[in-house]
């Protein structure tokens, strides 16, 4: 008994240790990648034309009321040779100081969470809904290839992919707000209503305001996801083992959901991983049209008003998320697909 237990434990560790090692190694690799990325992003932002000082002061301030520009430059870390400034900036970032937002006039670390939270709220719902619908529709389309159902969704996908999200948003606003006024134009809650934050009517109102932006995000996602799921499923249905399963006399449902679907999930999983960074990044257009105070809106303001510290922080944040998502995908491959083993060979 004792032996069995230790054996099982040993086996478990034997299988887990390479994965942990692999993850650690990949995390180590991320450091130089992030450093290079940060340098590139820093250089791009640094080389934006014009004096960055204009983002902090009103250009129409008369000369006799100008603040001490040299002092301000020093406070904002705009003085000194490039490598020195990069070094200082990097040290600050490593200590968790992302600089001052010139638009918000607050530390970037204080500004970001609120906007990320709002984007996340919108995206989590849109993503869950989109994946759920896409998987069901994709499988059905693949199984009943060229049926009316499949054709409908093919046309729908093409329509959805080629339609820019802002146009879709305007279309939905036109039909469901202006023609048939059932949903609100924009915002997160109705300021006239005076709801108590956290109360039931507050959440109801929030949900009501989320319908259209979630729908737009969702429609865009479904359009491409349906195609992926359908193709992955078709690929699997062609395999020999499906034919074998069918010839064994298994029921269609069992063949599709137990044998085919699980294998079709692998490429879909890649997508899930790659979409994770998008969860945190708001869509600039959708958020702008619906006045949703999310990351997309923030980034839009940052770009148009040269809020360099916010641009830097968000770009680094996305780079990091993308790297982590890639790692997540690779590791989950190993977990889902027995053919893939990490840590072997090389």
């Amino acid at each position, binding site marked *: 008994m004792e032996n069995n237990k230790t054996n099982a434990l040993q086996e478990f560790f034997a299988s887990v240790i390479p994965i942990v090692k692999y993850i650690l190694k990949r995390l180590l690799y991320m450091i130089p990648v992030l450093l290079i990325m940060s340098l590139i992003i820093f250089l791009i932002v640094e080389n934006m034309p014009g004096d960055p000082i204009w983002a902090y002061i009103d250009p129409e301030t008369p000369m006799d009321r100008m603040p001490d520009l040299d002092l301000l430059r020093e406070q904002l870390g705009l003085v000194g040779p490039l490598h020195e400034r990069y070094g200082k900036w990097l040290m600050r970032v490593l200590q968790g100081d992302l600089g001052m937002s010139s638009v918000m006039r607050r530390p970037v670390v204080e500004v970001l969470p609120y906007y990320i939270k709002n984007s996340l709220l919108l995206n989590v719902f849109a993503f869950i809904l989109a994946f759920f619908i896409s998987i069901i529709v994709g499988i059905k389309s693949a199984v009943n290839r060229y049926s009316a159902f499949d054709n409908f969704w093919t046309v729908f996908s093409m329509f959805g992919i080629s339609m820019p999200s802002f146009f879709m948003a305007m279309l939905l606003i036109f039909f469901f*707000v202006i023609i048939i006024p059932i949903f609100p*134009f924009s915002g997160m809650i109705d300021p006239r209503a005076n709801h108590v934050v956290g109360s039931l009517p507050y959440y109801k109102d929030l949900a009501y305001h989320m319908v259209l932006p979630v729908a737009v995000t969702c429609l865009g996602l479904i359009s491409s996801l349906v195609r992926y799921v359908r193709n992955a499923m078709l690929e699997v249905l062609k395999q020999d083992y499906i034919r074998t399963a069918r010839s064994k006399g298994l029921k269609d449902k069992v063949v599709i959901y137990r044998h085919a679907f699980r294998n079709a999930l692998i490429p879909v999983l890649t997508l899930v991983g790659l979409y994770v960074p998008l969860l945190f990044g708001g869509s600039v257009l959708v958020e702008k049209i619906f006045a949703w105070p999310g990351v997309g809106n923030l980034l839009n303001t940052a770009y148009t008003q040269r809020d360099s510290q916010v641009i830097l922080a968000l770009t680094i944040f996305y780079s990091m998320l993308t790297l982590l998502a890639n790692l997540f995908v690779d590791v989950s491959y190993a977990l889902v697909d027995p053919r893939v083993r990490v840590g072997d060979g090389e």
Partner: protein
Amino acid sequence: MKKILVLCLSLLLATGLVGCDKKAPVTEGDTATTTLPDGRIYNGFAMATSLTPQFDGYSNWHSDMIQPFGEGTSSNGARFVNEKNDELLMEMRNANPLTGKDAYQAAYLEWVTLMNEELPVIPLYANDYHDLYNAKLEGFETTPLWQWPEAIVSATGLETFVAGNTSFSGEFYEGWGNSAYDNNIRKLVFGGTGLMSVTNTGDLDKNFFVDEYSTSEDMKTWNFKLKEGIKFSDGVELTANDVAFTYYFYSDPTFASASGSDAYVPINLVGQDAYTASCEAGACDTAAFTGVNVINDYEIEFTVNEALFTTASTDFSRYIIPAHYNSVDGVINVEDVKANLISKPIGAGPYKITEYVEGQFVRLAINEYFTGDIHGDVPTIENVIVQVVPDETSIDMLIAGEIDLLAGMVQEDVIDAAKADSNLTFNNYPRHGYGHITFQTDEGITRHTAIRQAIGYALDRETFVGLFLGSYGSVTQGPYSTNYWMIDDAWVEENLTNYSYDPAKVSEILEADGWVKGTDGVYAKDGERASVNIACGSTDWTDPLNIITANSIEETGIEFKFNSIDFAVLQDHYYGIYKG
């Protein structure tokens, strides 16, 4: 074979690249054009400027406001040096703010005439602003100097009023940010701008909480008697101590270094430096601040270093903040105010903030202690909401009744849509500011007054306004605003030259000044060609300007080059901090 093909292709590509390079020389044909020193490139800048509520020409046009190019900020962007100009500006600056209004006005009008003749700046347009609003709102009279946060106090007809807004940054204290949207909230919370405030006719007068004020003969001492019983929205009485506290707060050295503050203190009071120094030494000594003198709870006296016409507007137009709310045991902590109170100020104005949600809205309710604004009006509209609305759908929201006001609209389609709706109405007024081309008057071709005047006649500004703004805009004749009390349309019509498009006039002016057309059809004199290079902030500017000057060489003998550059770079050039 393959290798030869690759070689040929790469050769072709390389020659193409070289060819491209040759095709786009920026300075082609500029050999005869006057070159500018210090790495300067442009003879002029096309941009828009807003004017302050109280005119302060000294800060933008006096020759004191010029520093050597590349060495410091020059707010006299035209680098305009003219003895008469300096003289008139000083005359205006030193006019007695109470008794010298006529002298001030005379100097102002003479100055506007001088600018119209010398033309360091050629105005292109002034927008026709429209405040579009719910027709149920009654008595809602807005002007550029009496905007909706002021006008809403005397308006009636609604229980809740929602103003659409593009954005706000949530900085509802003075000294952080210059956003007009944030300032709207400040006006509602503090009511007027300080001890002195602007009336609905644009005049400066004592604000609602001031009973009476007087000045010494030399205008250096200002005495304010406050009304008794004026209360902040938390019920605490506003006294002279709060007024003094406001001046201590903004003179505190920690204000200058507090995150993102505007970091300048435009106060010109005796003892301010000594006070700041005492704070830096460790203990703020209010006794050192001799220019601020609390006589009793309802009386305060100020002494200024320099008595100027603008003293009342620059030194006494500061929102009064309550001492009890913004200090702990009398100690000022600006960083703490910035971190915790910046979005929830308390003031003595008509409304108080009840809720602020970042990026979404500010909700305000009537300040029950408010006894009347500068005209004695008390608000009747219970709630004022300022909501962030997207530009794309804001007019639809107004038509659908979700919001009650869109202020300062300029787009033709938006204004026309609102005018077509019987549930909406509007107020319109010319922009308190203007779009213009400002010339470099110290160097280059545009240093010649004749060239600047000729350019005035070579630009079809009427057509430009149509292309740039559509139907809602007008052409102005100088750096003024007819919203000011000093000037009106009739005077402009009678006294200023209207530079309308006139090629014959261009020839007349230039030939009288000794300019002769060269073989290339462009006027030249002493080796200088009449070729101007103007920087614009976007293609919105360059497109209409290129259209109106498409045949300028054939028609007027002046060559125009309009370059669209990044606006921040344009500012570097305009303010003279560009380092070539």
